[in-house]
């Protein structure tokens, strides 16, 4: 069974076609990268997956559960770190995590909340109001909120945007550990070196379509040929985007 399955997925915003017949399966245990320029449709894809917006056509399933018709099961299996740095200014870090746990019907979750806070370096901020945290710390809380109900599938929408090196490293260490323990990870990022290091497989989106889908190794091999100047994912990305613009 696929961890995530997008089937004939399209999304229109009035006349704008944000997603155009996406067919994509992400297998359990994968560390999957979703790359593309701004406006490619990455966030729309994640929003539909998370139930934050509705597809115009097609279906999305999380571990076999349709995100629209079987939304309760699908959402319990999914943890999403949103791109925007959002928080509730009325509460402190621990309360924020306890409420998020409660929304998923999980009480007495202190042991896991303490563990997440420990791994994300939030323990000494537990009683701080969310307003008093730095941007990096708020980003850590967003990651903690996505993990609080122990979802097997975790989606990170540009989690390291504007984040310092220390957090980036500790975050990837923690997320890699979760992936090794069997969690499926889906990552969107503009830092292509992160995707290259972390992801087993990558899909590239442009104008709402999947323009490349392969293992990271195979994608890198595309430029490891005599015509290539370099051999990193950034070169592959630029090459594929230019090919798509030309076609």
């Amino acid at each position: 069974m696929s961890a995530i399955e997008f089937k004939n997925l399209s999304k229109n915003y009035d006349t704008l076609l944000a997603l155009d017949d996406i067919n994509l399966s992400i297998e359990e245990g994968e560390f999957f990268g979703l790359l593309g320029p701004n406006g490619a449709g990455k966030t729309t894809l994640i929003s539909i997956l998370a139930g934050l917006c509705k597809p115009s056509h097609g279906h999305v399933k999380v571990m076999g559960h349709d995100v629209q018709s079987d939304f309760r099961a699908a959402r319990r299996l999914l943890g999403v770190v949103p791109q925007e740095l959002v928080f509730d200014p009325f509460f402190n870090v621990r309360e924020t995590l306890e409420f998020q746990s409660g929304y998923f019907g999980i009480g007495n979750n202190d042991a896991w909340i303490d563990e997440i806070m420990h791994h994300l370096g939030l323990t000494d901020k537990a009683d701080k109001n969310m307003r008093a945290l730095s941007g990096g710390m708020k980003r850590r809380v967003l990651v903690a909120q996505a993990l609080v109900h122990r979802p097997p599938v975790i989606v990170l929408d540009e989690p390291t945007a504007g984040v310092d090196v220390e957090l980036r490293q500790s975050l990837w260490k923690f997320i890699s550990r979760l992936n090794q323990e069997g969690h499926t990870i889906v990552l969107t990022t503009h830092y292509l070196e992160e995707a290259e290091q972390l992801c087993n497989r990558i899909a590239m989106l442009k104008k709402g379509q999947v323009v490349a889908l392969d293992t990271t190794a195979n994608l890198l091999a595309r430029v490891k040929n005599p015509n290539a100047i370099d051999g990193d994912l950034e070169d592959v990305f630029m090459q594929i985007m230019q090919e798509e613009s030309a076609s």
Partner: protein
Amino acid sequence: MNQSSLNTFKSSSGFYALFYKEVKRFWRVSFQTVAAPVLTAILYLMIFGHVLEDHVKVYDAIGYTAFLIPGLVMMSLLQNSFANTSSSLIQSKITGNLIFVLLAPLSHFEFFSAYVLAAMVRGVVVGAGVFLATCWFTDISFYQPLWILVFGLLSAALLAALGLIAGIWAEKFDQLAAFQNFFIMPATMLSGVFYSIHSLPPIWQTISHFNPFFYMIDGFRYGFFGISDVSPWLSLVIISVFFLGVAALTLKLLSTGYKLRH
């Protein structure tokens, strides 16, 4: 409310957490959400009660100050029930933190119930506060407490649901303020809080009968004095029908994701 009480959620429903969060949210700023409306009601009572006590006789056996108190209690209850759902939702929408609720496996009925019940708690707390602060000004009776309870809770639920609609519809604070200042505020102020509609010219009496807020306050006041402008049963039917209509509309908006899930 402390941390341990938060850890008592044992159900598989997120309703309790959302309800508790909404109550805790307004309680955190209780000077603004509870104390301020109570003070406003006291000022209304002191000014209008003082000026009109010897000049206005609404019902023969009841002084104007006593007449005014249930009206002020209900007005505060209505306005604060509306304010709780509408302000919480618009703040969450504009700051973006509504996403945490939208990502959770909450049904639209759980979402509705949690927001409405939390708003009812605020409405009742403010209403009780207004009563406790104003009942010292005059003798006041409880003719039929059950009617007080029924009209108080039903009206709070109705305004809380209306607040949800306003919060869902509004995209900026300005739009919400317009809804509150040009619809909720006039409808409550012109519903008989300060007067009996029998003291109005015939045309205004007729117009008042089209104002659902009039039935809320008239029925609520009946519970205190056993006197009302229309039968409390009629008021109960009208408010119940309005509540069911507004609740159905709210649930429809939530189930379709109108302005929440694009």
